[in-house]
């Protein structure tokens, strides 16, 4: 019995990481209806950036964010402003195919620079520290930190979108980009800022992924799929939904893995497909539908 509690608990904590993957995807979809197929590769890219910052500059893993976050923010802004803004419109093909092409380009550039070797960011004793909750039941300190950070990021994003000037501009532009211009909002700038914001979260997610699992240049697509599943399960456009979706994904994967190691990823996908059948709009759909 306690084993199952443990399985579920670890799954919930993993869900925090998946929520971080998903939040960036949810933001850019929410603001500009863009689905970014490069998302997973950007997570891996930022893990490599963190790795370089730690190995080359000798930073502590968490201090490396001082370098990683501005880089990802600026990269996101430029990526959107110089490329992706030109794909937005009624036609679905250009954004999909352009981000798909970029995904292959980023993967192969990473492969050229860092080789196909599997990497890991070392976080010292933090990796093994754990808190004993009960007999045979303990949680790792690091997964707990990831989960708490995820919750705080979602609270922060929720605040940003609901209560700030820039958040209103995000929502107004998402509603009606033309009328937003009449308010003095430069929609191209807002789109680029939303990508930059999404990549800030990707930067944090990248560091956490690098510490908690092995990664290599081809690891992006599966992160994209996890992010995507969490977004759809949670309900499009709902930030708390991404946390719920992430948790469902994490718990199903852990239960799957407990039954048979080969079923870990499969169980997550199946949970996603089941929810797609019974709740096609996710668990927390936004009232306004597009």
């Amino acid at each position, binding site marked *: 019995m306690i084993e199952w509690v443990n399985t579920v608990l670890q799954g919930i904590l993993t869900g925090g990481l998946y929520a971080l993957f998903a939040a960036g995807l949810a933001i850019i979809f929410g603001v500009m209806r863009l689905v970014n197929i490069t998302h997973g590769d950007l997570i891996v890219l930022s893990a490599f950036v963190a790795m370089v910052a730690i190995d080359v500059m000798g930073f502590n893993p968490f201090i490396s964010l001082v370098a990683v976050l501005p880089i990802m923010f600026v990269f996101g802004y430029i990526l959107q402003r110089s490329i992706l803004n030109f794909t937005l419109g009624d036609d679905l093909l250009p954004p999909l195919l352009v981000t798909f092409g970029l995904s292959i380009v980023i993967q192969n550039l990473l492969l050229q620079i860092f080789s196909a070797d599997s990497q890991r960011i070392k976080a010292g004793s933090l990796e093994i520290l754990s808190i004993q909750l009960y007999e045979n039941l303990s949680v790792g300190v690091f997964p707990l930190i990831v989960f708490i950070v995820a919750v705080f990021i979602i609270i922060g994003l929720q605040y940003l979108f609901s209560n700030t000037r820039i958040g*209103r501009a995000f929502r107004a532009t998402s*509603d009606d980009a033309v*009328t*937003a*211009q*009449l*308010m*003095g909002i*430069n929609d191209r700038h807002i789109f680029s800022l939303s990508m930059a914001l999404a990549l800030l979260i990707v930067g944090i997610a990248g560091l956490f992924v690098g510490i908690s699992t092995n990664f290599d240049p081809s690891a992006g697509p599966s992160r994209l799929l996890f992010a995507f599943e969490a977004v759809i399960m949670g309900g499009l456009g709902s930030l708390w939904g991404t946390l719920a979706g992430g948790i469902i994904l994490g718990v199903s994967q852990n239960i799957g893995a407990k039954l048979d190691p080969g079923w870990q990823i499969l169980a997550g996908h199946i949970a996603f497909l089941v929810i797609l059948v019974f709740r096609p709009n996710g668990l927390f759909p936004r009232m*306004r539908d597009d």
Partner: protein
Amino acid sequence: MSLLEVNNLDAFYGDFQALFGINLAIEEGEAVAIIGANGAGKSTFLRSVSGLVTNTADAINYRGMDISHRAASDIVGQGIAMVPEGRKLFPSLSVEENLLIGGYSQRAGAWNLERIYGMFPILKERRDVAGTALSGGEQQMTAIGRALMANPELILFDELSLGLAPIVINDIYESLPTIKQEGVTLLLVEQDINKALEVADRVYCFQEGRVSLTGVPRNLTKDSIAAAYFGSDK
């Protein structure tokens, strides 16, 4: 120098030409109405001034400055705000947020939430509901308030009365003299000729993308307006 001076403006939607050599001038503090039938190019004209339609160069001068190629998002900061046709409130923003977003360009001026609520008390009561949950008239008030929050010198009103009940139209139009008294210049596009003539100091009539008549309301006869409105085959 006029506040807004438009010289020989052409406007296009793709290959379709919607405006042909429009000349128009507005002095500071005036209320000017543009009337005309559906498809006469009135709304296109407003969209040109606000930067939503690409224009011929040098055609639009605001305070002596060429704004024909300015982005729409820049023009608000110059002091031109618009109340778009159909109100176009942002559905995911509350009434108050819709008003606040109107002040996004952070142009200095006397307008603030309190004054808007003073002018339209009903909006204060309903400040927290979604903009789109309001009645048509309340939505129009919000749209006017939203434009005022930009602290404009010139407001463009696109079809204020469209889709509203006559009694509501009266309420909305009552706010215009107040706004004018604050020194804001008004440019209205309006299908309801009587309403337009009530508030306007001067009138332009558009027909098929051209100015067909201009004058002061009391000097215009019904016949001259009708001819300018519908065109004459004689």
